[in-house]
């Protein structure tokens, strides 16, 4: 086994995903088979190979620090699940 149900529970907590018992069972089996498949990469020696994160050379992009119009607060808050006094409203963060 590449992955256990306990590890699935740990990763689900890292990913902030609530999974049902049934989902955990299924996820364990499916991730296990995918990870077994991915193991094929270990056939390759990559000791001296540089990793590629992007295929094209990327540089940081700068722009002049100029004032530009931004989206109005009301338009952004229009999508908020809950709001109060111009802020997003969520459950208490600090007990």
């Amino acid at each position, binding site marked *: 086994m590449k*992955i256990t149900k306990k*590890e*699935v529970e740990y*990763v*689900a*907590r*890292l*990913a*902030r*995903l*609530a*999974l*049902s018992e049934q*989902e955990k069972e299924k*996820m364990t089996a*499916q*991730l296990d*088979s*995918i*990870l077994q*498949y*991915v193991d*094929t*990469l*270990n056939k*390759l020696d*990559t000791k001296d*190979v*540089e*990793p*590629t*994160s*992007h*295929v*094209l050379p*990327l540089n*940081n*992009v700068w*722009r002049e620090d100029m004032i530009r119009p931004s*989206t109005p607060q009301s*338009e*952004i808050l*229009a*999508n*908020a*699940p*809950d709001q109060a006094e111009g802020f*997003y409203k*969520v*459950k*208490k*963060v600090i007990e």
Partner: protein
Amino acid sequence: MDLFKLTAHELSEKIKKHEVTSQEITTSVFQRIDAVEPKVKAFVTLLKENALQQAEKIDQKIKAGEKTGSLAGIPIAIKDNMNIKGVKSTCSSKILNNFVSPYNATVIDLLKKQDMVFIGKTNMDEFAMGSSTETSYFGKTYNPWNLEAIPGGSSGGSAASVAADEAILALGSDTGGSIRQPASCCGIVGLKPTYGRVSRFGLVAFASSLDQIGPLTKDVADAALLMNAIASYDQNDSTSVNIPTPDYTKALVKDLNGLRIGIPKEYFVAGMDKEVEQSIRDAIRLLEKQGAKIIEISLPHTEYCLAVYYILAPSEASANLARYDGVKYGYRTPNAKDLLEQYEKTRGEGFGPEVKRRIMLGTYALSSGYYDAYYLKAQKVRTLIKNDFDEAFKKVDAIVTPTAPTAAFKIGEKTEDPLQMYLSDIFTISVNLAGIPAMSMPCGFTKNKMPIGLQIMAKHFAEETIFKVAYAYEQNTAWHKEKPSL
């Protein structure tokens, strides 16, 4: 005449000659939608009223002799992961079910500048994760050639809408084959441009180093026209590349003399679908007859592409999808006691099984203790895959392969086995990992009358080479003129 059946370049000619108006075309397209959409279910949102208003405005502009874009008045469908201001962008997910875009994606602004008409947002695999459009929260899309088959995915709605004549053109996005594989399944043309060629600003991110927007069209000339409209440098996308955009229609010439086309032996393996292989071999012979030089090549790391992709794409996705937490927009669970539970339940209830699977896989591959073994390893093998293509393009100008190992499969056939589903993308994924452009175009049918797709790849920013090969092939065949009977 049934205007909805025509291509964009045919309709543009008619508009310019004042033979038809955009309103007539748009009305015709919506009549077609009324007739076949109950069977195909390509759309998540239809914008009939807006579209007819837009068409009217564009007609007035044309009538007044004002300057208009080269695709002025042509109706287009947009995959539901691109933002149109004031319209829902759901990514076919419950978690964005009620999300209304506060801004336009750059491609939308560019199409507006061309005076195009937006007819609706198309169905997709949830967050573009899938190869069959079966993971959509809003239900399945059906293949116009056989309503029991999948349309491919993830841009299945866009592909099906064009194949069913419910849209003249469509935009899709391609992370591992999501434009090309559905184009192949639905018998149309689909192009994934070079990474960095088309702005991703306003495209909901799945795997940022792989995602690219591109056209889904009825023929090759339409794909060139749509590329002319959307290929552009954009300050809002830091991975957008600042080089001039050629006029792709100039590449539409019937001349392959001296062009070197590579056939990678790793894409023609024992056990591959006989009908698919036969069609591709026939296509290669035709290209050779047209003057191309056919050269056998090797892309030795092909067998590792799928494994690399299923580490890198979920890893990037797990980071990109962390933003869906029920705080600022989208679905929020009504059943949480505290903030942590709000995050976990919102995401647990808001995402479907495939998205959860990929978030889990990505989180695992990036987690402490596994990063080197999975994520870093995959990035290194990605280098080897890219090197394969660099080497190959020293010897050839284009590479030709099948787009998919089989024609469209039956709905439900692969939903229970994720690995089998992932294998549908085995011929398309390498292109995204290498960042090169590739097209799928119709090259035949199975005996059950399901379309087969030919994939044409070229090196970075050599879309013109692809257009040249595709046009020469298309002008000598009639596959693209066949229509499904709906």
